[in-house]
């Protein structure tokens, strides 16, 4: 059985996740330019998501 394919996705807070390539992408989420097996996608995220703070927090100045 072929392994399911996943996409690396990202929201406007620049938080990453994965989503089944067969399913419609939920609102507010965008493809981040990587597809593969579940494990490959998670490994990719480990390399690209270097600042895990939500964007609003990263950019906010107190």
């Amino acid at each position, binding site marked *: 059985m072929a392994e399911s394919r996943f996409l690396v996705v990202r929201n406007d807070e620049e938080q990453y996740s*994965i989503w089944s390539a067969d399913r419609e992408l939920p609102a507010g989420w965008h493809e981040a330019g990587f597809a593969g097996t579940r494990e490959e996608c998670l490994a990719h995220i480990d390399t690209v*998501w270097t600042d895990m703070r939500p964007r609003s927090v990263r950019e906010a100045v*107190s």
Partner: protein
Amino acid sequence: MTDILSISAVQGEPLPWPDATLAELIAAQATRTPDAVAVRQWDARLTYRDLLARAAGVAAALRGRGVGRQTRVGVCGHRRPELVATVLGVLLAGACYVPLEPGGPRRRLREIAEDAGVTVVVGDAATAEFGDVPGVEALDLPGPAPLAPCPALPGDPAYVLFTSGSTGRPKGVLTTHRNVVEFVHGVVALSGTDAGVRSLGIASLGFDAATMDLFVPLLLGGSVQLLDADDRADPVRLARFIAAHEVNWGFITPTVLSMLDPAQLPGWRVVLCGGEAVPAELAARWAPGRTFLNGYGPTETTVLAVSGPLTATESDPVPIGVPLPNHRAYVVDADLSPVAPGMTGELLIGGPGLADGYLNRPGLTAERFVPDPWSGRPGERLYRTGDRVRLDADGRIVYLGRVDRQVKIRGQRIELGEVEAVLGGLPGVDAVAVEAVPGPAGTELVAFLAPADAPDDARLRAYAGPRLTTAMLPARVVRLAALPVSATTGKLDRPALRALAAADRPLPDAPAGADEPVDRAVARLWARLLGAAPEPDTDFLAAGGNSIAAMRLVAALRADLGRHVDTRDVFTARTFAGLVERVAAAAPADGDGLTTGNPPTLSPPQRRLWFVDQLAPSSAPYNIAVAHRLHGPLDVTALGAALRAVAERHDVLRWRIPQTAGVPYAVREEPTDVAVPVVDLTGGADPEGELAAMLAAGAGHAFDLATGPPWQVTVYRLAEAEHVLAITLHHAVFDGWSEAVLYDDLATAYARAVAGRTPRLPALAATYADYAVWRAERDRRRGDADLAWWTAHLTGVPTVLDLPRDRPRPAVQTYTGAEAAVRLPEATDLAVRELAERRGTTVAAVLLAAFGELLARLTGGDDHLLGAIVADRRLAAFDDVVGFFIDTVPVRVRTGGATFADLVDRCAAELHEVTTHPGAPLERIVEALGVGRDTSRAPLVQVLFNVLNFVPPRLSLTGLAGEPVPVPKPGSPFDITVYVVERAGCVGVEVVHNPDLFDAERIDALLADLAALVGALAADPGRPARDVAVELPRPTVRVAGLGAMTVAAAEQPRAVLPAGPDGLTDTEDLIAGIWREVLERDRVGVTDNFFDIGGHSLALAEVHARLTAATGRSITMLDLFRHPTIRALAASLDGAADRPELARAALRAAARRSRTRRNPPRRPGGTAH
């Protein structure tokens, strides 16, 4: 688009919350209620003002080290109120705290600190745990500082909690201020609480439930009732804590809750229970009469995500409820597609409680936090909980187990939770856990049942057989007294169970040594106490046993063998063989009720001693002073280190006893170096004379129990290699027994210190505070029965004993002391010992009988009441504890016509019986007998007969030869105290008397006559005692000084102020108001005696505190005692002030305030309302 109604989805109510940081909100609360208590732990309290000041100090120190927004700071502190200030301080600095709990495995702590990138650790255990970690700065708790604004924003992380998954290394969950603030508002709405909240501060800081414990009260203006490590580890202490702190709201795991009794905790109105499955049976016990909420939530959703009320009529598995406000829940299959309502699937949670993710674990975060396709909110995420649930018919979520708790046994899919649910239904099973472990034939199930006597395998199989498939039946069953609980989370410790199952060894069925024969055990304890192994016919007394040794032997027999024996068994059996027989036949002893690790707590005798100390503050009758002459080179530095080690071990030596509103309480200082001043007497003309004077002065040192150490040490240098070590201690922290303990410990520590090692001493099995708690409970349990015994026993006894004296009794008792001693002639010594042996009792009983006969001849009566001393060291655990374990008990000696042998028997029985009713202390007996208070004498007991014949212990320090140096007793709390002593192998009697009553010549003669009388009586014990040596005592002893048997006139109160329109002066009105409040009476008469209308000494202390506060004047406790009516006291106060008119004005103002506040009804005619 999926139809939301046809899938398993549930929404919480919308609820707004303030978008602010925790630090801002708590600081704002502190401005509103600065004086409200924010954190309490027994007597330790932090108000909101204190909390903010301490937290601001932490924040300032952190900012000074470059800590700011989003910095992660380790918090490593003990569970004291300051821990909350430390946490808040980190938040105030804008940083995010990482709990690093002291005392846990060090490696794990350091790994967490490293994973979290922590470079600063703050808290009172920071130095101890992290002082030696490279790259980490450990910062002990800084002092208070002014408040500076918090630079954090609501979206910034507030803390990182590390959670262990079932496999792999711990992962840090990043939780923000917004997460927490939103959650707190949700749970407040859900549980309906307000500023009156007193929360149960039980959760470990590393467990998310601590968020609830701390921030729910702190955001509302309520208070955190913070348990220390010991109180949260023991169900009995936990229950006591909850009751004593009036906890009314709190979260607890079902495992811990199941150990508590709801009937004992009616004040706990809101119980949130969760963290693991709540059994229906638990809800049935706890839900009636209070709000009982199930709470469910992973750390990744802050604390709780789903909650709902449970009733007494749920059935397993109970619903966990519905999503919290602003949250939503979905039940999905393995492909993350929603299942139909009622079908089982994995629970997904969405809402503002979702954490940012896992610290430095992007892949893992992306895997567990997934896009939300159903809410219609763009970019939202859902957390995959890994929990299997379904919706019930009412739309409530039912928890079924972990997704990863599904195992395969012989190819069949088994849900461990289902097996647990069935086994849990078997009567006689209190708790159950089932784990799958590798077995000889593949994976097998092991069931753990509690209690230890849960049903056997046959009954279990008969019950479970029809209810479970063959694959679901456990291969092995392990029965435990209780299932292991994780110290961090309070949940069932499954890794520990798996380790236990994998070990696959039969549990030891009995503790080692339990099959030791009784005779061998008794011989072992006997030899330990008396120094030599006994033969069957060895006599206890002949072998050196006395009443103290008997008590210790009995305590050891109870502790080691669990047999209920008492000292009478020892004295009746006499021989070793006889004792073994009695022990073997004895009933099993009840549990001793001892709890350990208690915070400083005053014992009832300490409270009484505190009170009498207040009455006599200028003298030092309650000091114990000891000294040793040491020959050889004394290492003073090592001595100081050793004394510190002693004070570390015996924390009572570090106690302070302050008071608020007349109620004393104990606080403990941290160990510090003990100052050892060295007084050099080498150059003086008369060093021995100077030494004697200084020893006497040191013995009379007036300790201030509220502020200073209760002991002091001085070294006097007489020559290069000759010193005298003098130690003076307040009786409140010491007793005669403690002396040997002190010397032993000091010697051990000194030996280590001079050898260049750390003079640390092992911790005690129980502390003085543990005794205090044990004792209070014992007194509570037995008090009424024991008091009834005492009142019956003492019916008709004269409550005043006036011996012929030389001077009138001063109107107010003085506490001066002088000493005298006599040694029994050799023949008498022998006769007394022989008689004691023939009657099967102690030398002390013989001397008491003789003293009783002497009293009869002095007063002409035949019924006298003396006092005796009882050491309340009834448990072996108290053997090595320094502290005040002493009770004064009444001893009734009836003479009248008996032979001396009979008298000895009576005294022996009396001395035994008075030790067996310890639940009613002297003060209660005084009250019950209605003995009028009188400032001229101690109530009930004026003559003390001290039968605790300690062999004076010796201090032997490494490299030094030591001998005791007599130190004059600093004062006399009684008219006369008689000590039965043994000096150089010979019995003697020592007396401390009050020279304001007696001349030394009279006392010397009395002692000589006592020695002569006891010799005559012991030589002829079969004759009626009154017929023996009728010439004794001589007239110099028997005849009082002219006019001496009176009480000196008290000073007369000066003119009484004119009374107001209601018949009372302002002062009287003020005092009456205070009396009414303290005594809780509607009316008090101005001429009523305080002690006749329900007052007792601790109530008097309360009156004293209130009166001092109301008038702003320095009034001594003695003033109140001397003037026990309102009229007399008011007259004394009005007359005694330096500026009467000013004092009157102050009193009038205070009286007006008191009237305004209470607005009591007024009646004329000299009755204060």
